[in-house]
C-alpha cells in the first residue's frame, strides 16, 4: 500500500473535548480526567483505505483551546491538510468560537478540508444545539457530526471522513 501522511489540526474552544476526541480516535480509549492542553500535543494515527490501496497516516496537532488564535497558534496550523473543528453541544457559545476560528483560519490559509464535531453527545439532557442550527452550521464545513468522545460515537467516522476528504483534495485534486 502506498503510504500517505497528512497534517491535521484539531481546533476549538476551551474544554470542548478536543484532546478527548483525539485520544479516543488514536488509542480508542477515553480518559475521564480533563486534560488541560497547553500549546500543542501531537498524535498520529494510520488509517487503511484498502479500496484505494492507501495507508493514510494522520499527524494530529491538538492545538490548545482558544476562542481566537494568536500568532503562535496560527503558526502551528501552517501547512495543515485538514481541520477538525470541535464544539461542545452543551455549550452553544463554543459553536460561535468555532465559527470565529473557522473564518480566521480560512482567511489565513484558504479553503482546506474540514469537519465539524459537535461533541458531548452523551450529555443529551444538557444539549443546547438544535437540529436546525446544526444543519445550518454543517453547510459551512465539508461534513459535520454529533460525536461523543466518551462513548466513541461517530468519532472514528468523522475523522476517517476527513482523511478521505484530504485524499480527495491533496492526491486526487493534485
Amino acid at each position, binding site marked *: 500500500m502506498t503510504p500517505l*501522511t*497528512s497534517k491535521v489540526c484539531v481546533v476549538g474552544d476551551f474544554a470542548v473535548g478536543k484532546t478527548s476526541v483525539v485520544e479516543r480516535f488514536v488509542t480508542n480509549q477515553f480518559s475521564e480526567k480533563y486534560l488541560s492542553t497547553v500549546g500543542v500535543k501531537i498524535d*498520529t494515527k494510520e488509517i487503511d483505505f484498502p479500496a484505494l490501496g492507501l495507508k493514510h497516516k494522520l*499527524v494530529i496537532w491538538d492545538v490548545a483551546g482558544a476562542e481566537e488564535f494568536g500568532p*503562535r497558534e496560527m*503558526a502551528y496550523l501552517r*501547512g495543515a491538510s485538514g481541520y477538525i473543528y470541535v464544539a461542545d453541544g452543551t455549550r452553544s457559545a463554543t459553536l460561535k468560537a468555532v465559527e470565529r476560528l473557522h473564518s480566521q483560519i480560512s482567511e489565513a490559509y484558504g479553503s482546506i478540508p474540514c469537519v465539524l464535531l459537535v461533541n458531548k453527545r452523551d450529555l443529551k439532557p444538557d444539549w443546547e444545539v438544535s437540529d436546525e442550527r446544526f444543519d445550518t452550521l454543517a453547510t459551512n464545513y465539508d461534513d459535520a457530526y454529533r460525536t461523543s468522545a466518551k462513548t466513541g460515537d461517530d468519532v472514528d467516522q468523522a475523522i476517517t471522513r476527513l482523511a478521505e476528504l484530504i485524499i480527495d483534495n491533496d492526491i486526487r485534486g493534485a
Partner: protein
Amino acid sequence: MNDLDQLKELLFGAEKQALDSISERVERREIRTADVADILPEAIHQSHQKDGELVESLTQPVGECVQQALRDEPETYADALYPVMGPAIRKSIMHALRNFSQQINEAVDNSISPKGLKWRWQASRAGIPFGEYVLQKTMRYRVEQAYLISRENGLLVDHVHHESSIIKDSDAVSAMFTAIQDFVKESFSPDRTGRLESADMGDFTLWAVHGPHALLVCVIRGVPPKSLRADLSAILERIHFRYGDAIREYKGDTSTIPDVEVELERCLQFEAREESGKARKGPPVPIVIFLLLLVSIAAFLGVRSWMYSQQQDKLDAALNATPGIYVTKIDRSGRNFAVRGLRDPLAMDVADVAESLDIPAERLSVSMQPFQSLQPEILAERAAQMFDKPESVDLSVSGTTLVVSGEAPSAWRQTLQSRFSNLAGIDRLDISGLQASDWQQFADRVASLNNRKFFFQSGVDLVEGDQDKLREFASELAKLLDDARDLEYPVSVTIRGSTDSIGDAGANAVLADRRATFAARVLASAGVDARILRQPELRAADGEPRADVSQRYVQIDLQPESLADLP
C-alpha cells in the same frame, strides 16, 4: 476586375503577393514580434562576437532589472542561490578553519606525551595535520538519527537511524519538533526570524540545519565538532539541489521524493568512536614494546649524554688546574671533545691531562695557541731549563722571587746570580738554601797542602830532596790558588821560618826570616801571588840549646779566607 487590373495581375501577380506578404509582416505586431524572437538569440550571439557594444548597452538595463527583482523577491533569489552560496561560503570558512587548525597544530607541536606521539604517528600515516587529528580524537560523537522535515507543514519527508537507536513515532517527533520550533520562534524571536538550531538532552544533542524548504534534524550522541554542522549543511544543500521543488510541494506522499533516504543516510556516517573495548584495556603489545624500546634508548642516550657532560666538566676543571694551560672553550659533539685555548710549551700536554681522565686521544681535538705563562710552576720549570739545573737543586717561585735550594757547584750559582733577571716575571733571587757542592773537594785539596814543612841543612840550604819537594809544592799550590780564585774561595798562605836553639836569638830570627823569604821566593817563582805572602813569625827553638836538624825548617800554612761566609 478591369482589364488593367487583369493585366497587372498577369504581369506582377507574384510580386504583388510578395509585397502583400511583406506589408502584412510589417504591419502586424505579433508577426514582427515572432520574427524578432526568431532571430534575437542569433543576433545577440553575432553582436557579442563582433564587439563589446552589446555588453555595454545591456549592462545598465540588466543591472537595474536584477536589482529590481532582488528588491521585489529576495526570498526567491535566496532560495535559488542557496545551493550555490552554501558551498562557496563553506569553502571560505573551511579555508579559515584550516589556518586555525594549522595554528593549533603548531601549539600542540611540543606535546611529547605517549598519546601525543602515537597520535602524531597516526596523523602522519593518515596524511592529515596533527592539530586536526587531535580535534577528531578528542571529540566522541555519533549521529544516531536524521529527520528530513518539510518546513511548510512539519511533515516528515524521511527518517534514517542506526539499528541500535530507540525509535519513537518519527512522524510525531517530526511534528513535535516543528511545533517546538514554531513555539520558540513565536515566543522568543520578535521578528520571527530566529531559529532553533540546537538542543541538549543529557547524552544527546539535537542539531537542526535549516534549508529553504526542509529542515534537517539530527540526533547526536556525545559532543559533535563544530565542523559537523558544515557537513550536515552540505547534505541538506545537496538534497535541496536534487529534490528542492518536490519538497516544496510535499503533501505527505513519499513517492514524490524517491531515494532521498540514500542522501539522508550519509548523515549517519558522521561519528568519532572511542577506542574499542580491547584497545581500552591497554595499548597493543607491539606498541608497548616499541615505547619501551624508545624509552630505553632515550634513557641510555640520556645517561650517556650526562656522563659525557660530566667528563667534559672534569676535563675543563683538570685543564684549568694544570699550570701553563688556559682553556677558552670545550665543545662536545657526542663523545668527542674539542679543546681550544692557550698553552705554555713547558706545560703538560693536553692529551696527557685527558688521558688521566680516561679520555683517549682519538676522542680529542686540540687547538691551543702558544703563550708564556707566569704561573710559579712554569716559571720554575723555565728557570730550570734556562740554567740547566743540577738534580741536587730545587727551584721554586714565590711571587717574583726565584727560590733556590739544595747543592750546586759554585760556578752554577754564579751563572744563576748573573742571569736570573733575564727570566720574565722574576726580579729577586733567594739562594739562602743553596749550598756549594764542590766546597768539600776544595777543602780536601787545601788540607792536603796545608802545614807542609821543608827542612834546611843550615842557613837557607834545603836538605836533599826538599828542594824538589818545595818546587812541586809551589806548583801544586799555584794550581790550588788559581782554582780558589775561580771559585772565589780566597786562600791565604803563611810561611813560618824556624831555627834550632843554638846561637844568638837575634841571629836565629834573621835566619828564620831568611828561610821564610827563601821559601816565599820559590813559591813566587811558581806563580803564587807574592801579595799573599806574609812575614813569618820569628820563632826560637824552645828548651835546651842544641843543634836539632828537625828545628831547621819552614812551614807553609794555608788558611781559606772568610770561610765562615761560604755556603
